[in-house]
């Protein structure tokens, strides 16, 4: 664990997180399977000129139909032992959100559960399972996204002996993978992750101090913090507004905030488009720079819009939480402004970290 000292600058922290196994590109996976099979892949796993490994893809299985099918998935095993209810809520919410961001019709989204549990004969593990199942019910009903299938494996435990011949038991953390499938009514509803020159960048949704079990917390010490909580009512409202705005083709790009928070999301968008970003970090809700950039609060979307669309954008998202955070520029660097300080590095350097190899592969 590293200290948050001034020497360990913001940029170094970003590189550290960007090159960690959970965040780095999984391009080597995409290139190893036939993601073009039957000529239906239209939003491919590698997105933008910078080939960012996307969290959502789309296929167009029927040649003479304008509809496309979008697929995504989400899992947060890191939250399970802290709060299995929140863990399941985050998985469902993120899997659904990813499809909404891709342009899916909210009324035509279905989900699948994949429970990989451990020691399911122990009371504590069964309690966690029950809490996760409760969240599945609550959120699926609230979002009206049916579980159309699923599977489970309940004993992902290894029992054996260590080098010293002492008995050991190794279990996976309880894991719920939610896969999501949705119909995008028209091909021009599909969004992309790459902002365009002179676009204004906004974050939709609320950022809280939710750094617990985050990618940031994997490496750096954090003060008192929480794991993310999903506010289903606010999220649903945001997704419906997003859908409405997207039908008017308001966004030049959109990407759901996932692991690594806003900071990593912005860098992916910049790598994808190979266009620079000038980001002004707001002082809001008493969040410091690390909390704002790396908090993994749920139900947030980074979007870019053209300057002349800002008024209609503000109208549609009236009374929701949205924050203007910067602009997209035709230079090759990303600049974070906070108070009077500037932190910056080139897209090329960020891209190098993002495309570093996972150790042992």
């Amino acid at each position, binding site marked *: 664990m590293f200290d948050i000292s001034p020497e360990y600058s913001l940029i170094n922290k970003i590189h550290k997180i960007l090159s960690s196994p959970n965040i780095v590109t999984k391009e080597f996976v995409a290139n190893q399977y036939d993601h073009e099979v039957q000529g239906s892949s239209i939003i491919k796993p590698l997105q933008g000129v910078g080939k960012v490994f996307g969290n959502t893809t789309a296929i167009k299985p029927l*040649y003479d139909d304008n509809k496309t099918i979008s697929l995504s998935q989400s899992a947060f095993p890191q939250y399970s032992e802290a709060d299995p209810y929140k863990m399941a809520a985050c998985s469902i919410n993120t899997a659904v959100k990813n499809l909404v961001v891709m342009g899916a019709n909210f009324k035509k989204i279905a989900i699948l559960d994949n429970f990989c549990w451990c020691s399911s004969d122990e009371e504590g593990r069964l309690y966690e399972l029950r809490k996760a199942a409760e969240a599945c019910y609550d959120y699926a009903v609230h979002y009206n996204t049916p579980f159309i299938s699923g599977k489970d494996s309940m004993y992902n435990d290894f029992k054996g002996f260590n080098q010293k011949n002492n008995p050991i038991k190794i279990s996976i953390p309880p894991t719920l993978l939610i896969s999501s499938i949705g119909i995008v009514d028209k091909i021009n509803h599909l969004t992309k992750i790459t902002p365009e020159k002179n676009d204004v960048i906004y974050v939709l949704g609320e950022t809280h101090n939710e750094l617990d079990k985050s990618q940031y917390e994997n490496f750096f010490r954090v003060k008192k913090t929480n794991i993310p909580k999903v506010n289903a009512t606010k999220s649903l409202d945001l997704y419906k507004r997003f859908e409405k705005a997207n039908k008017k083709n308001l966004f030049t790009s959109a990407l759901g905030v996932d692991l690594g928070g806003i900071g990593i999301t912005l860098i992916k968008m910049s790598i994808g488009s190979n266009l620079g970003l000038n980001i002004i970090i707001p002082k809001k809700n008493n969040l410091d720079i690390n909390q704002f950039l790396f908090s993994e609060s749920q139900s947030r979307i980074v979007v870019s819009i053209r300057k002349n669309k800002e008024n209609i954008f503000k109208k549609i998202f009236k009374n929701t939480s949205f924050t203007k955070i910067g602009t997209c520029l035709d230079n090759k660097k990303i600049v974070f402004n906070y108070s009077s300080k500037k932190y910056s590095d080139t897209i090329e350097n960020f891209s190098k970290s993002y495309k570093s190899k996972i150790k042992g592969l």
Partner: protein
Amino acid sequence: MKVLILSGYGINCEDETLHAFIKVGFKGKIVHINDLIKSPKQLQNYQVFAIPGGFSFGDDTGSGNAMAKKIKNNLFDYIQNFLEKDKLVLGICNGCQILVNLGVVPGLTKKDPQVALIENNSDIYQCRWVNLKINNNHTPWLKNIDYLHLPIAHQEGKFIIPKDVINEIKNKNLISMQYANDNGKLANIKFPYNPNGSELDIAGLISKDGKVLAMMPHPERAFYYYHQPNWQELNKKNEYADGYKIFRNARNYFK
């Protein structure tokens, strides 16, 4: 204009290949290899014979090998007869491997394969988009095409060719497409531009008379504009992508 598309035993690109032909103006039919063997004379009713991509016979004993044997043992005379007429043959990916194993491309002799397709240098399956430099226009398939951007998806796409055969292939100008870098220059075996290590960056070959095109890239997967990577970023949106040109050329040949 009619096209017969072969299917069966793991070929899996027949639908979109037929769709591409139909879209440019062909009529066509997907015929299972066993049905074709049962009534091989039906081949006479078609102008184009296409073998799509896939994993025929699970790629056991080498990609395309078993299907080539099945064709050779049951249909070879009919195929030869077909080739002697003013007709065209297309093999895509697994279809290319089948045509190579049949010896139909480069077709220097009437039997036995003269070149081989072996495992990629990376030893793993590769699915990615490649740049292709089109070298000769003496096949109707590639008329008026200089450059193509198409996807490949294969594990055994590396052409290896004996020295004496290389010279003959070069002299007769049978190398139809070669992997290129982003500047349109030959990839020079450099990965990922040349995704498999193919000799002379070969991505496709034609037969001596140019009627048969065997290519590892998939034109049918780059048919519409939205098949292209990052099509949303393109300023000019044509209805079709590069693969369309190959099918269009086949139509123009018979028109």
